[in-house]
């Protein structure tokens, strides 16, 4: 399983490095979203700082949809998905590999968007460990759910519109918990308020990673 996941993650990241879709489209999309949110909130610095955590996670969520759609679409050209099935790769390894590749892209995105939040919204971080923990756990959850629902929509003609519809409601706990943890970790927040939300993210990740490992194979066969 681990060997297969490394192989698949390496393949997806290599494709990403070649096509540069993540760097040239997904990350800029995230930055544009942050800037537009800033315009929408107006010049009120206090309001922007207050809204920064939620806006950060909303931007991450939208970018996750793009990253997952890209991850699915590379397998839809020239029968590549059938090629993966035919290779006899362990479905759990395939799920973990594709999730890891999406997660790696999200980490880069979150670093850029995090810097954007600090610069654009004037947010200052007082509990970096909370911010980092929320990003790590949130990324795992988003990548796992995104990959799972990406596989569900993979064989459908309407996957571009169906994926956000399926994924965004499911990812709402990550948005909620991530926002609360960031509020606790930014200036004016109370770090101890972040702990319960961190636990929620741990549970969310455990559920969806386990679910993905179990059901990714059957989903892939029926998609």
């Amino acid at each position: 399983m681990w060997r297969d996941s490394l192989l698949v993650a390496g393949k997806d990241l290599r494709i990403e490095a070649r096509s540069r879709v993540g760097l040239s489209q997904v990350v800029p999309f995230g930055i544009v979203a942050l800037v537009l949110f800033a315009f929408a909130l107006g010049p009120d610095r206090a309001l922007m700082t207050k809204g920064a955590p939620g806006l950060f996670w909303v931007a991450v969520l939208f970018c996750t949809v793009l990253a997952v759609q890209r991850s699915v679409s590379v397998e839809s050209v020239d029968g590549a998905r059938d090629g993966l099935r035919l290779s006899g790769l362990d479905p759990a390894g395939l799920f973990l590999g594709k999730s890891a590749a999406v997660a790696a892209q999200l980490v880069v995105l979150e670093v850029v968007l995090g810097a954007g939040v600090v610069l654009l919204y004037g947010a200052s971080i007082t509990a970096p460990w909370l911010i980092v923990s929320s990003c790590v756990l949130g990324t795992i959850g988003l990548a796992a759910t995104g990959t799972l629902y990406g596989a569900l929509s993979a064989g459908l003609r309407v996957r571009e519109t169906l994926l956000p519809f399926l994924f965004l409601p499911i990812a709402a706990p990550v948005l909620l918990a991530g926002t609360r943890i960031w509020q606790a970790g930014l200036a004016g927040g109370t770090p101890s308020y972040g702990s319960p939300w961190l636990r929620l993210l741990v549970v969310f990740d455990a559920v969806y990673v386990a679910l993905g490992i179990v059901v990714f194979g059957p989903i892939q066969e029926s998609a």
Partner: protein
Amino acid sequence: MAPPAPPHPAVFLHDAVALSGRFPLLAGVDLEVAAGETVLVEGPNGAGKTSLLRVCAGLVPLASGEAVVLGLDPVRQRNRVRRRVGLLSHASHLYDDLTVKENVRFAVRASGADTDRIGEACERWGLTGRLLKTSASKLSAGQRRRAALAVLTARWPELWLLDEPHAGLDASARETLDQLIGEAGADGITVVIASHELGFVESLADRAVTVTGGRITGRRALVAGPGGRTDAATGLNGGAEPAPTEEPVDRLRPVGPGDGTDEVAHVA
């Protein structure tokens, strides 16, 4: 002394029915392919040749009937079957953003095969020099086909399922393919070839089966062995598998809801 016979046929299908939604792909196929045999599957467009190969590869589950491939259930033990089967289909299964070498290497490693043969396989299919470092998006259809064949050559699985293998290849590549199929046969590999181009393929196969309307409707033994066959002795049930159904198959219609059966309906 002759080598002991393998304990099971490479492919065994009995009354195999496969559906795509409500549409029948296979309508009760009986086929047995012995290990080491090369079999041609012929038939008109839409007859079920590709579906037959996909069932053997474990890509399409059976709605009813029985399938055993290399002694394994191609659905329940699909990963074990797939690692031992090579399917050359209409698609090349290449990633446009990877180079030829990266594509071949990934496919071979993913199937768990040894990577030692990759260089030799690529060379055999003319994938050398700068072409190896070219991204798949820049390849012609014939070059993509060669890359897919290089994967098969490097993997060297036990059962080859070749769907229109000569399509898109130039004369020299067709010759290479014919040689390769001959070598595979000599190496004890089972080869099932679905093709319209009988002129190319008849000389490679031990026998032919005809698929029509999702069923085997004819069988004929081909006279000479791989590399030397020039003509065929026609006749029903010339092969080793069970006798074909006497029931005429003219066309099929999708099974309607409430039919009370998962069998395929036949319309005479």
